C-alpha cells in the first residue's frame, strides 16, 4: 500500500498491522521525483515529500536523462545519492571496495582521491598475506591443481570455493581487485554444478590472474580453460556436427556483445573454427586435430583457408587467430567499456563516457587497470547515481563493517543462497544480473540476513563483539555505528530513528545486536 502514513510513520507495532483499509494511492510516486521534472512535480507534491526530496542531491549529468520510452517502460536507474554523502573520497571508497570500514575511510582520507585509487589499483603491492594464509588453512583445495582436485570430494570443492570467495571479498585488503574478480566471474560465468572441480583452476589461472590485467590475456586464458570448454559444451563439438554453444557465447557475452555485428552464419562458422578445442585427462585443455574441421571458413569477414589434417596441432592457430580478431574488434572495446562503466559508475553511462573508455581500451590494448582508472575519476564519480548493492556485495559489506571474528564461513555461504546470490550457482552464462529491477524486490532476505549476522556469536561460525558498542552511552553507540557502517555519513533520518529505537539506557548485548542489525538492514546501507 503506497499510503501517506508510511512517510510519517513513527516506529511502533501499531504501524505494522495488516489489512488496513485501502487509502487512495499517494498521488505522485517516488518515481516521479526522478522522472517528472521539478516544475511538474512541485505543483503536486505534498509538503512532507518535498522535505524528503530536499535531502537528496540533484544528479548532475552531462546529458539529460532518457525520459522517452525508457521512462514509460523502464525503471528508475537514476537514484541521486544521499546529501550526507558529501565526501568525494567517500564516494570512491564505496565504489572501489565491497564496503566501508573505519580504517579504510581513514586510509583514503590520508592518501587523497588519486592516491587511494592508485593504492587500490596497484593491488600486488598491498600485503594480503594474512588473508591468504587463512584461505590456505581453512580452504586448502583452493591451492590444488586440477590433477589433485580430480579426486577431491565434489561437495568440498563447491563449499571451499564459495566460502573462500566471500571470505576474500569481505576481508582482503585488495578491495578494488576483488570488485573486479566479482565482475569477471560474472562476465565469464560458470555453474559449479556443471563444471565441478574444473572451476578452481579457472578462478585461479583465468579470473584471479587477469582481473586487473589485459582483457586480451583474460579472454584467451578463458578460451584455454578446461572449465569453460565443459561449461559451454565445446568439448562435445566435432567436425561432423559442431556445437555452437561456446562459439555463440564468446561473441555475444565475452567480446562483441549481442549487438556487436555478428550473424548466425558467423556463429556457425566460428563453431567450425573451434572444433577440436576440448579437454583431456584430468582437466587439461587440449586441441584434438582429429575432430577439427579443416575446410575453409569465413568469420566476421575473415577467411581462414582450408587446411590439412597433416598440420596436426597447428590447427589450433585458426581459433587463436579468431580470438585476436575478437579482442581487436571495435565492438569488443565498446562492449567491455560499457559493461565496466555500468559496474563501476552508472547503469546508464553516457555516449561520451562509453566512447572515452572504449578509446582507452583501444589505446592500451585492452588494459583493464587503465580503463578502471579512467572510469573512477573525481569528476564523473561524484555526479554518478547510487547503485544498489547486489546481495553478495551487501553481505560482504556487512561483514566488513561488523568486523566479526571468523571461525567458519558456512553460515554466511548458506545465507548467500537464501539471498539468491551464492557464488558460482547462476546456471546460465550471462552471470548474475547487475540490475536494480531484478534485486530491489528481494528485500526481506536482506533484513533477515542483517538479523542473522548481528546475532552471530558462536565459536563455530562468526562472533560479532558488541563490547565496543556498550562501553558508553547509547548515543555513543550510534556514533560508532555511523563510523563503522556509514563512514560517518549516516543519513540523519536513520540516525534519529536509531536513537529513538536505542532509548537512553546503556545498551544490553541483545539491544546492541538489534541496532547493528537495523543498521545493516537500513535503506542507506543497501546503496553504494
Amino acid at each position, binding site marked *: 500500500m503506497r499510503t501517506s502514513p508510511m512517510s510519517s510513520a513513527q516506529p511502533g507495532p501499531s504501524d505494522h498491522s495488516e489489512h488496513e483499509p485501502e487509502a487512495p494511492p499517494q498521488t*505522485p*510516486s517516488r518515481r516521479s521525483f526522478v522522472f517528472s*521534472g521539478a516544475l511538474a512535480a512541485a505543483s503536486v507534491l505534498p509538503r512532507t515529500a518535498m522535505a524528503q526530496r530536499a535531502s537528496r542531491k540533484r544528479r548532475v549529468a552531462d546529458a539529460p536523462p532518457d*525520459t522517452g520510452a525508457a521512462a514509460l517502460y523502464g525503471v*528508475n536507474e537514476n537514484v541521486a545519492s544521499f546529501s550526507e554523502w558529501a565526501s568525494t573520497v567517500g564516494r570512491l571508497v564505496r565504489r572501489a571496495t565491497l564496503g566501508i570500514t573505519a580504517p579504510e575511510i581513514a586510509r583514503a582520507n590520508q592518501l587523497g582521491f588519486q592516491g587511494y585509487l592508485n593504492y587500490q589499483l596497484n593491488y600486488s603491492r598491498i600485503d594480503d598475506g594474512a588473508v591468504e594464509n587463512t584461505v590456505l588453512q581453512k580452504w586448502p583445495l583452493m591451492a590444488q591443481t586440477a590433477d589433485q582436485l580430480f579426486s577431491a570430494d565434489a561437495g568440498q570443492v563447491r563449499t571451499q570455493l564459495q566460502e573462500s570467495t566471500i571470505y576474500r571479498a569481505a576481508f582482503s585488503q585488495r578491495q578494488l581487485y576483488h570488485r573486479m574478480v566479482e565482475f569477471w566471474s560474472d562476465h565469464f560465468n560458470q555453474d559449479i554444478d556443471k563444471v565441478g572441480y574444473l572451476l578452481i583452476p579457472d578462478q585461479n589461472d583465468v579470473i584471479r590472474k587477469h582481473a586487473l590485467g589485459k582483457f586480451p590475456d583474460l579472454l584467451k586464458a578463458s578460451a584455454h580453460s578446461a572449465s569453460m570448454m565443459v561449461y559451454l559444451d565445446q568439448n562435445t563439438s566435432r567436425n561432423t556436427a559442431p556445437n555452437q554453444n561456446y562459439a555463440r557465447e564468446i561473441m555475444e557475452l565475452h567480446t562483441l556483445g549481442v549487438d556487436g555485428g555478428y550473424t548466425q552464419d558467423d556463429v556457425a562458422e566460428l563453431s567450425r573454427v573451434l572444433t577440436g578445442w576440448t579437454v583431456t585427462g584430468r582437466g587439461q585443455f587440449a586441441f584434438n586435430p582429429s575432430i577439427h574441421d579443416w575446410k575453409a571458413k569465413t568469420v566476421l569477414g575473415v577467411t581462414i583457408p582450408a587446411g590439412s589434417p597433416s598440420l596436426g596441432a597447428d590447427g589450433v592457430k585458426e581459433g587463436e587467430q579468431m580470438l585476436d580478431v575478437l579482442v581487436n574488434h571495435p565492438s569488443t572495446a565498446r562492449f567491455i567499456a560499457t559493461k565496466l562503466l555500468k559496474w563501476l559508475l552508472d547503469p546508464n553511462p553516457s555516449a561520451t563516457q562509453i566512447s572515452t573508455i572504449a578509446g582507452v581500451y583501444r589505446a592500451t590494448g585492452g588494459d583493464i587497470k587503465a580503463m578502471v582508472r579512467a572510469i573512477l575519476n573525481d569528476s564523473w564519480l561524484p555526479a554518478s547515481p547510487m547503485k544498489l548493492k547486489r546481495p553478495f556485495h551487501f553481505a560482504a559489506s556487512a561483514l566488513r563493517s561488523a568486523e566479526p571474528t571468523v571461525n567458519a564461513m558456512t553460515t554466511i555461504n548458506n545465507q548467500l543462497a537464501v*539471498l539468491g546470490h551464492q557464488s558460482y550457482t547462476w546456471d546460465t552464462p*550471462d552471470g548474475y544480473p547487475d540490475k536494480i529491477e531484478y534485486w530491489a524486490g*528481494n528485500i526481506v532476505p536482506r533484513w533477515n540476513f542483517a538479523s542473522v549476522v548481528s546475532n552471530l556469536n558462536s565459536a563455530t561460525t562468526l562472533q560479532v563483539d558488541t563490547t565496543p558498542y556498550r562501553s558508553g552511552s547509547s548515543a555513543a553507540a550510534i556514533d560508532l555505528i555511523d563510523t563503522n557502517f556509514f563512514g560517518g555519513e549516516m543519513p540523519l533520518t536513520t540516525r534519529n530513528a536509531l536513537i529513538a529505537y536505542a532509548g537512553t539506557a546503556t545498551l544490553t548485548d541483545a539491544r546492541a545486536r538489534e541496532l547493528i542489525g*537495523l543498521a545493516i538492514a537500513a535503506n542507506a546501507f543497501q546503496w553504494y
Partner: protein
Amino acid sequence: MDELHDADCGCQEYQELSRRQFLGAAAGVSAAAFFPSWLPKVVMSQHFASNRDIIVSIFMRGGADGLTLVPPYGDPAYYTSRPTIAIPRPDAASGTKGIDLDGFFMLAPAMAGLAPAFAAKDLLITHGTGQTFVSRSHFDAQRFLESGKPNDPSVITGWLGRHLSTMPPLKAAAPLRGIGVANGLQKTLVAPVGGPYPPRVLPIADPTNYTIGGAAATQASRAAFLQSDYATSDEPLHSSALDATNTLALLKTVNFSGYVPANSAKYPNSAFGRALRSVAVLIKNDVGIEAAQVDIGGWDTHSAQGPITGGMANTMADFSNSIGAFYVDVIATGYTVTLVAVSEFGRNVRENGSAGNDHGRGTTMFAMGKGIAGGRVLTKNWVGLARENLEAGQDLKVTLDFRDVLAEIVQNRLANPNLSLVFPTWTPTMLGVTR
C-alpha cells in the same frame, strides 16, 4: 462496485498524474519530444472486475525443444532429422512411446502429467510458436518475450507487470498482487511504478519461510523501524520495502505446512513443484494474489538431451507432473485460474553431434484453464519439418506469434482492455485460444 473502484484507483487527478508519470516528461522539455509514436492512452477499466482469472505464468528457461515436448510424429522429416533422439510413435512396439494427441502430434512419454488436462479439453498446446523477431540468443530472446515488445531494449518492464499496473487490484487492500517465485524479480513481472494502479509485485523464493528473523518480541517494532526508514528510499526500493513489510504480516496468516491439496494431488518435491504448491496455497487462501511467475530451467539441451530416460526426460517429468498436480488441485476444482507456459525459442530440427541440438526458432506454448479452448494442438500456417520449409535451412518456422496467445488471454480471461499497453505496437489476431 464503482465506489470500490474509485477508492482504489484514486480519482481523476490520479489518472491524470499517472499519465504524466507514464510519460516521464522532464521539466522544461515538452512531453511530445519524448512521446513514442507507439504509446497508447491508458484505458481505465470501467468496472471493478472481480470475476477475472488469476494468471500463473511459467517460463521454461533455456530454449525448450518443442519437437521433443510435442513431436509431430506424422511428419516423416521428424524421424529422419533425429536419428538418435526421436520419440517413438504412439503405435510403436516400444514401451517408451509417445502419447497420441490428434493423430499428428504426440506428447513425449515424460509429459504424461499433462495428458489428463488435455483429455478434459482444459489444455491447449500451440506449435510453431515464438517471436517473429529473430534472435537465437537466450538472453535477448528471453527479455523480449518477457517485455512483450521484441527488439526494443528500452522496454525494461514486463507484459505481466504492465497488466497489473493497468488493472485495479482484485482485492483492494491486497499487499501482494503479483509474486515471482524467485530470488530476483523476473522481467515478466517488472512494472512501471508510476502506473495507474500499484502493481505490488515481489520476488519471494520461498513463501513458506518469509521472515526478518531475530527475537520474536521485537519483530514488529523492527519492521516498523524499517518501514519508516525506507519511506524516503527511491523507487523501486521504496515500493518493494512497503510491499514487503505488508506481505510479511500477510504471509504470517497463511498456513503453508498444513496444506492438503485437493483430489489427492501430488506435487513433486522439486523446486518447481514446491513453487506451484505455494502458489496454490496463496490462491486458495484468497489473499488477493492475481499473478504468479514461476521459472523452470534445464531446457538448454546442447548435448545428451535424453528425451526418454535422460536429463530432458527428468525435466519434462518435473514440468508435467507439477502442472498436472496444480491442474487437479486448483483448476479442476473450479478456481478461475489460467496457466501459461512459454520458452524463449525452440531448437534445431536436426540433432547435433552431441545427441542434443542447438538454438532454434519455433517451439510449443501451453495454456491451461477452464476458460481455455483446450484439447487440441493449435497451429497457424504450419509448414512442417521438410528441409525446404525450414527457417535458415535448420529451424521450425515461427508462424504463430506468442503475443497472439497471451493477448487473447489478457483480454478475455484477465479482462484487461489495455492490450496496446501490455503488448505495445502489436495488433493481435484472436485465434480462439479462449472459450
